[in-house]
């Protein structure tokens, strides 16, 4: 089926939760809703599911208006951040419950429960109760419950947030494969840019109740249409600095100068905001054209394989992502280098006007 949202808004107590969202989800597509907490991801999913009616706008399924239709009749399934299973039923009965309610016959239920359990790697846990399972197994059960009924729309609301790192990676790898051969529309909400990139598919970036951009995930990542999109779809958030184009060069507010060349060559005179992702800053000069800058180290976060160095210069705070473990002294002056070929330029309204060409050579999406 095709799910179309037409000018959906949701206002609760005078406060706008969803603001004029229109989008079309293709059959069998994998869609990531990326946005910060309170961006409206869950509300939008609830509206898609039919758990909540929109304040205005229409929801179409294959061009049929289903806006007022009850959730039970829509054939949707949802997986939540919390691990939601019937506490007094064992895993088998939990997975079987939606089928029983649909009135599927017993032999068919048994077959489908077992094959779904196998798919989710919980076939050995069928007679356990949810409380006897680990978090990962509980969420697998919840996902099996959602997948067993062959729904047309599967909503996953930050399903991996409450899992520990290892389990999260495991399930994240499996999810796109599990759903690949179905014509189910999958909507997956997340706050994490990396998760969106790893899941692939299409990505809708949400900010303050609006969908600011919707397109293939990597394309959105490489061409964030607005400053906000760049901030949301980068971890750490994209580094920004105000700049002005005049006399054939770009003058950053911090006093540095960038030549108008490459993808930036067509910028006309005016004020801009330049953005650069943390992984494109370096404490070593990476090429002949890099621009050297100085700043004070405010903080260094070591994640294990990488170090995030927070630097401060001329009222601007940036984050540099460095490979390996570095331990700069706090307050120490440090030099770092900007690669001008990696700069994004946004106009005075925050709209993207120039994005660096996509590099595919190293095989990494970043």
């Amino acid at each position, binding site marked *: 089926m095709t799910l179309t949202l037409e000018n959906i808004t949701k206002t609760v107590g005078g406060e706008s939760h969803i603001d004029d969202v229109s989008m079309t989800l293709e059959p069998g597509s994998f869609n990531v809703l990326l946005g910060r907490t309170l961006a409206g991801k869950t509300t939008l999913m609830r509206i898609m599911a039919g758990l909540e009616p929109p304040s205005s706008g229409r929801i179409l399924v294959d061009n049929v208006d289903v806006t007022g239709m009850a*959730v039970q009749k829509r054939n*949707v399934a*949802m997986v939540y951040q919390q691990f*939601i299973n019937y506490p007094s039923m064992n895993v088998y009965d939990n997975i079987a*419950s939606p089928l029983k309610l649909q009135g599927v016959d017993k032999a068919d239920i048994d077959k489908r429960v077992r094959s779904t359990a196998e798919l989710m790697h919980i076939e050995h846990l069928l007679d356990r109760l949810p409380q006897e399972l680990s978090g990962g197994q509980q969420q697998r059960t919840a996902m099996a419950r959602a997948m067993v009924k062959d729904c047309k729309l599967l909503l996953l609301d930050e399903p991996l947030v409450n899992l520990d790192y290892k389990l999260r990676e495991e399930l994240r790898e499996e999810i796109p494969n599990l759903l690949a051969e179905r014509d189910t529309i999958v909507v997956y909400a997340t706050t994490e840019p990396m998760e969106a990139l790893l899941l692939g598919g299409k990505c809708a970036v949400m900010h303050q109740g609006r969908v600011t951009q919707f397109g293939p995930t990597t394309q959105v990542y490489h061409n964030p249409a607005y400053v906000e999109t760049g901030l949301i779809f980068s971890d750490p958030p994209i580094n920004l600095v105000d700049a002005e184009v005049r006399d054939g060069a770009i003058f950053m507010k911090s006093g540095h100068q960038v030549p108008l060349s490459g993808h930036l060559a067509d910028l006309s005179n005016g004020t801009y905001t330049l953005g650069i992702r943390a992984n494109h800053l370096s404490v070593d000069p990476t090429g002949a054209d890099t621009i050297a800058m100085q700043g004070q180290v405010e903080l260094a976060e070591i994640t294990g394989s990488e170090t995030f160095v927070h630097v401060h210069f001329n009222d601007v705070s940036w984050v540099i992502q460095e490979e390996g473990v570095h331990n700069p002294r706090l307050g120490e002056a440090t030099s770092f280098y900007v690669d001008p070929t990696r700069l994004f330029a946004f106009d005075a309204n925050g709209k993207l006007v120039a994005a660096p060409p996509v590099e595919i050579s190293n095989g990494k999406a970043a």
Partner: protein
Amino acid sequence: MNKITNNKAWFLVLPVFFIVAISAIIPLMTVVNYSVQDIFDPQTRFFVGTEWFEQVLGDSRLHDALIRQIIYTLSVLFIEIPLGIAVALTLPRKGWGVSASMVLLALPLLIPWNVVGTIWQIFGRADIGLGGYVINMMGIDYNYSQNPMDAWVTVLVMDVWHWTSLIVLLCYAGLRSIPDAYYQAAKIDGASRWAVFRFIQLPKMQSVLVIGVLLRFMDSFMIYTEPFVLTGGGPGNATTFLSQFLTRMAVGQFDLGPAAAFSLVYFLIILLVCWVFYTVVMNAGKREEQ
């Protein structure tokens, strides 16, 4: 041997021993003392072994009181628990109604037992009590001071009025702790209202219900004040429950030996029932509770 022993720890435990000894063990031992001896005065006492126990256990009036007590306690539980759950389910989940109903529900709990007794004693009177008057107006011959059944029902209604709120509040707390996502998930599945109750709400309320049942069992099994205030255990022996019986024996007739023996039996009954109930429920729920 690398086990570290530190005798100072005893000083930290001693106060507890001391307090428990004063508050529980020593008083209990005096009761034990009375239950196995016939005491006339501090110098004159005879060891009687199990005679008092045999006497009270063979007492047919006590058997009657025990049966009355069991029927009463079961009635209390069978009315208050389902009623409490039902009321909790209908309470609002948000808005001003929440605090309003909380206050209303908590009110009966704040009233002392003997006041509750007095309230109902007056309320139920056929001449000046609103309740008694209205019931008689409707053509039902209701008089708790003469009809044993009326007295018995009045004590029961009094307890239901007084304590159902406790079950409601406990269940409500249990219900509130269920994340909204459970209800949404059930809605998406198309589960019926009954299925939501049976498979989500009831299992999630299980632990508070165990506490509720235990509290109501113990409390109703020891009921004393309400029937005492209402009719003093009458008419006849209709509302003479175990506490009443015990008090009459100990204070009224001054049969300290049999009273002490019976106190111990009484204590053991409550302890045993609570233990059995708790163990059974927890074993049944063990797989769910972990």
